[in-house]
């Protein structure tokens, strides 16, 4: 019989894996043709290094999440998983922060630098990128909850004394 702690941890990890996979797929398949002052061009995620970084970072974490799903409960590798969780959370935060900074400029433009917003010409691309960022955020929050839960379980003897 699976213990409830193990079930909760497994469920959280599955949600995290699912949302990172969704973020990668949404961002990688976002492309749209648009016209910009009578010049037709295609907006893809490879146009900006920030979006490329987002896809690469979330792909790495998807593979990691997939591998951790199959780790048996008693093995000593769980301590390494705890440390790697922290490292990957940092990677996720960095990539989603960068992608959001560039996406914000794309949506609102920056009039002082004469940067015009792009979302008016390619609305489907913008919506898909927004969806990828939302999925990325949910994945990040799930990983943070997982990390705090793992630390709480690990330090439970310390908390019982309090």
């Amino acid at each position, binding site marked *: 019989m699976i213990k409830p702690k193990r079930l909760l941890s497994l469920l959280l990890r599955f949600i995290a894996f699912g949302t990172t996979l969704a973020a990668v797929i949404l961002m990688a398949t976002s492309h749209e043709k648009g016209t*910009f002052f009578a010049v037709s061009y295609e907006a893809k995620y490879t146009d900006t290094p920030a979006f490329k970084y987002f896809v690469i970072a979330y792909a790495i974490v998807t593979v990691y999440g997939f591998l951790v799903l199959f780790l048996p409960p008693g093995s000593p590798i769980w301590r390494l998983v705890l440390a790697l969780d*922290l490292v990957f959370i940092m990677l996720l935060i960095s990539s989603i922060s960068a992608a959001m900074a*560039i996406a914000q400029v794309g949506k609102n433009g920056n009039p002082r630098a004469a940067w015009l917003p792009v979302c008016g010409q390619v609305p489907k691309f913008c919506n898909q990128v927004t969806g990828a960022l939302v999925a990325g955020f949910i994945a990040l929050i799930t990983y943070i909850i997982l990390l*705090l839960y793992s630390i709480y379980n690990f330090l439970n003897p*310390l908390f019982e004394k309090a």
Partner: protein
Amino acid sequence: MALQNEDKLEVGYSSLQPKPKKWVLLMLRLLAFFATAAATVVMGLNKETKTLVVATVGTTPIKATLTAKFQHTPAFVFFVIANGLASMHNLVMIMGDLFGQKLDYKGLRLAMIAILDMMTVALISGGASAAAFMAELGKNGNSHARWNSICDKYKTFCDHGGGALIASFAGLILMLIISVMSIIKLLIKPKPDSTTVVP
């Protein structure tokens, strides 16, 4: 006889106490504080004004004054706030280490320090990464979206921003080392001491 043995055990244990580690952690926190404070200040005071001749009416040229400030970009605002919070965190931790050794909350002092350190690492990494990509956009522009680079016009702004970014990344690496050391301190601290009764 038993008391002598206990004394020997205590002395042996205290000589194995990681005494140099306390100073190493304090020095690292001081360095991280200086790095993040430098990043905050340099980016916070980042401003460049240029006067350009826009048009000529008759014989008098019309000049326009354009400023580049860090507040124009939300990513840089986030960068300044994140590094400011990180330097406040380091300052509070240094004060706590030097003057508040007795402060504790139900024995969770080390756990709170470790968790706060992890949160600060996450914050700095977010701010530094967003500002780095915005700076790359400002330096190289983006041909697909028809965004021109601004660094050739505002060279000092870009240089100062780059310096602040370097300081922030140095602060990030230092904070990562500090966070790892705090977690190690949390995990190897001997939990049962000789005075508690094991149920």
